């Protein structure tokens, strides 16, 4: 471990690992919510459940906004190097 610490910054490495896990799995989770939201909203509209349709549409829009926020954050990371 000491030898490794002399060659690379172990703190940076651990930071890359946890950030990647959080962001990568997070984006899969949030975008899945978007898809579920849109798919279920369509089903609810077809079945005439107005309130449920609005709730699922809100879920879809909010989660899509979260994905787009992650993308914008990614661009900021690139420009802020």
């Amino acid at each position, binding site marked *: 471990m000491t030898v490794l610490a*002399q*060659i*690379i*910054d172990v703190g*940076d*490495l651990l*930071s*890359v*690992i946890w*950030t*990647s*896990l959080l*962001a*990568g*799995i*997070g*984006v*899969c*989770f949030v*975008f*899945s*919510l*978007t*898809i*579920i939201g*849109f*798919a*279920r909203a*369509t089903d609810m509209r077809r079945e005439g459940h107005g309130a449920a349709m609005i709730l699922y549409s809100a879920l879809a829009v909010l989660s899509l906004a979260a*994905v*787009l926020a992650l*993308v914008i954050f*990614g*661009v900021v*990371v*690139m*420009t*802020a*190097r």
Partner: protein
Amino acid sequence: MDSEIILVIVVVTALAFDFTNGFHDTANVVATSISTRAMPPKIAVGYAAVLNFFGAFLSLEVAATIASGIVEADLITPMIVFGGLIGAIAWNLITWYFGLPSSSSHALIGGVVGAAFVAAGPDAVIGEGLIGKVAIPAVVAPTLAFLVAGIGILVIYGMVGRQHPGPVTRGFRFGQIISGGLLALAHGTNDAQKTMGVITLALIAAGELGSGAEPPFWVIVSAATAIALGTYMGGWRIIKTMGSRIIKMDAAQGFAAQGSGAAVILAATHVGFPLSTTHTISGGVMGAGAAKRVSAVRWGVAGNIVTAWVLTLPASAAIGAFTYGVTRVFGTGAAGPVVVSAVLVVVGVVVFARRLRQGSPITAAEG
């Protein structure tokens, strides 16, 4: 006069490397989108090329110049840089010939290491830098992306598994347009800067720019244009390997591979940890496939790819060293680089023509 000719040759060779970098690495950005039909092939490479071009302008942090911390900076000369560029271009063409994705950055580092080793001896190479900036990241990048994409696709399947497949597929195809765009921007930002760094270094060494100068605007525009043109030309053989020969992927797997790849690359960029885009995306593709079913991954193809990664540094170093040796046979003037460039152009044209006639790429052990 000789130094001016050498400078022009180094600049042109750097732009040629940049072109092969875009050509070779198009697959990282578009392969999954094409194979899942998120975008038609020509639209996908056009989209990636445009974002590569604009990505090159996003950041101009060229302080991390070529092989920094791996080769003693004081010893780098335009001739060493030329040898390194030839080593990297040659390795990019060899791996393209066999349809194998490999790191253009590691090829460039390998080429410079080989040329510097021959020029100045073993003291020119910083062993710890080689391990910390090349070897360890080469293990971390694909492993981490494999893990993230693997968990990511399990999360996706767990959440959308009960939905109608039509909307789910359309949704993830749309998602791939977003994640692929982010990857293309990141690729343009990271890789075009290597060429800007090489050209700026050569201009400083030739006395055309002062020490520590920023890259001139024409350098930024030409590097952005070269990588975008290379991307638009599309390294179709590697795209085929990445998109359909490792795994047959669905749109959700494509999104998981790209989204996870983008997350890993941006996390590494954020803390300045040097990871290869190629290693990351390849690991993501394998992870997204293996999590669904281990046997879904064609491990023979994956093995060929890993072999190419292992060979990248020593092979490009050997070519870089050989190139430097050949140029020195002609003395310290411009004759050596002129002869080597002419030979490379002829060999490149012959290999390209032969490859086009042969058709399908050779990626043995597909089954």
